[in-house]
């Protein structure tokens, strides 16, 4: 299939998807892109056959183009919270866990995101460092990028829950910082995670 034809088909497919969903406003979600419904590749053409053929095609601001995220959230500089004091224990219970090779926040993990967002609302002036991690199975630099995408997905989700992107920083440790030392799924599932480390401003001298 030629690229031009393909992109036309893709736009059509996504338009139909939005139309079929009753044209509800689709929030901009980066994390959705990593899922099986991604707007790239074979998934786009698959969705055509799943749609009712009688749905009208609608265009406009609600169409496919706007449902695809155009930008990520720019990161805050690494020195913004340079002298802040890290508190890894405060939100320890709210670490978000991921499926293998995925950076999609599972629905079961979303309450933790809500809790972290609530914490930030209740503690103005504090910040959170989101640390992305992976299990040991992938290759090293692939995992470093994957860990970062997990941290970025967690940040997107926090922002959706009303957190201020300017108090969120991200870092990936790839597979360099496992919490569970084993070499099976019981350890791996604990290592595929985003940790939230609270950063408090340095106390005045």
């Amino acid at each position: 299939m030629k690229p031009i034809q393909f992109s036309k088909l893709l736009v059509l497919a996504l338009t139909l998807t939005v139309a079929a969903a009753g044209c509800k406003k689709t929030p901009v979600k980066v994390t959705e892109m990593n899922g099986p419904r991604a707007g790239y590749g074979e998934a786009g053409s698959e969705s055509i056959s799943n749609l009712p053929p009688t749905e009208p095609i609608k265009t406009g601001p609600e169409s496919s183009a706007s449902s695809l995220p155009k930008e990520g959230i720019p990161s805050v500089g690494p020195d913004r919270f340079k002298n802040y004091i890290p508190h890894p224990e405060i939100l320890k219970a709210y670490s978000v866990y991921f499926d293998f090779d995925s950076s999609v926040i599972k629905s079961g993990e979303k309450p933790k995101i809500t809790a972290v967002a609530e914490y930030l609302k209740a503690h103005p002036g504090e910040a959170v460092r989101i640390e992305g991690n992976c299990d040991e199975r992938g290759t090293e630099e692939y995992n470093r990028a994957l860990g970062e995408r997990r941290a970025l997905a967690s940040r997107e989700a926090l922002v959706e829950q009303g957190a201020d992107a300017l108090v969120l920083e991200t870092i990936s440790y790839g597979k360099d910082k496992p919490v569970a030392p084993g070499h099976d799924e019981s350890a791996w599932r604990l290592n595929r995670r985003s940790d939230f480390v609270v950063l408090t401003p340095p106390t005045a001298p």
Partner: protein
Amino acid sequence: MKREEMTRIYPSLTRPIRTLARRLKRLVHAHRAESTVPMRMRPACQASALLLLGLLVVCRTPCPGAEPLDMTITHLFGLGQEPPILVSISGLSGEAAQVLRFDLYVQGFAFTNAEAAQYQVIGSNNGNIEARVVQRINKSELLGNRVYSGPFRRQVHHLADDFVNAIPGHAKGIAQTRIMFKGQTGSTSEIYIADFDGYDAQPMTRDGSIVAAPCWVPHRLAAYYTSYKLNNADIFYHDFSTGTRRVFARYGGSNMSPAVSPDGSRVAMILSKDGWTDLYVANAGGSNLRRLTKSPQDESSPCWSPDGQWICYASKDGERRSLSVISPSGGAPRRLTTRLASSPTEPDWSPDGKYIAFTSQNGGNFRIRVIPAEGGDAEDIAEGEDPSWAPNSRTLICARRAGGKGNYVLSLLDVMTKQVKDVSRISTTSSDSQPSWAK
């Protein structure tokens, strides 16, 4: 035999037949017919050689359109299908013989007795290493007697290089080259430099932090690598000859996977400063940062073509991982075909520009595979991850998971013969990975 089957077994046959015939003719001329078919050669290779001989007879007339003669004899056979060159070693004993064997084995040699060998290394190690090399067929000297001096292992490495470099058409010797890698001890890791065989490993950093993805700057004792020393994943430039280092990339988010261009003028890397993990390139001083990809999908592990015209990196095409190539000045990426290989990551472009080695993952299995640089069928070489080419464009160093656990050992692979040997281990590290070969 069906044509497809033949192509699969003998990829070299897909090249222009006449060029092949000329290469074979040259090979036969250089080594005399009998020595091109060593006794250890597998039946498949024998069949291949016979077939090629047949082609030689058919295509004797020179072809004006044929590609220029490639002086590297190794490319007569497909990747991984070249028979090893048989060598006998006499007069050298103990560690001297051991080191020489190791050096030669990972460059496509194997060992036999003096009667069966193509080359006979005749030496002594009473005091300094001394040796000469004789071609068995006509008893002529390939290498006149030489006496070596300096540290013991260096003497042997020097001899290995002299021998390899004296063989017409063989890739240049690598026994005196060095490697850089990430050595992990417990939860911290440091950058190490060692001889190519793992000996004399020295830590170049002592930060007690985490380092990653060292990339040796060509023709300098310097590297780019990621370090977590400053509580962020930053890319440092570290000149080991002066001991000075500076932050090269310290943007918000993670700064990962630096790859310096062959001329040292530019660095490709993965940054998340704009909210997605994307491929960027900057000048070696850090200026002129340019974003090359813009996608919420993953990009990782960039590497450069030897002419600096292209960057190859691991990407995702829909739900499938793939390798892509992009110009450092921007434009649309082109997907590389990696037939027969699943989930490719960690590409490395050979210094001669012909091949791209990468890691192929299938479940818990990690294999080193090699494709022609323009894409195509992936040749399976050996178990391993994160390959880095030697300057000879035929030996690779990679990391191999020891005993199915998370720890890595470094391993050398000769791509042409698929001969494999682990390098020596350092006692202080628990895991050695992410090798980068000095070029």
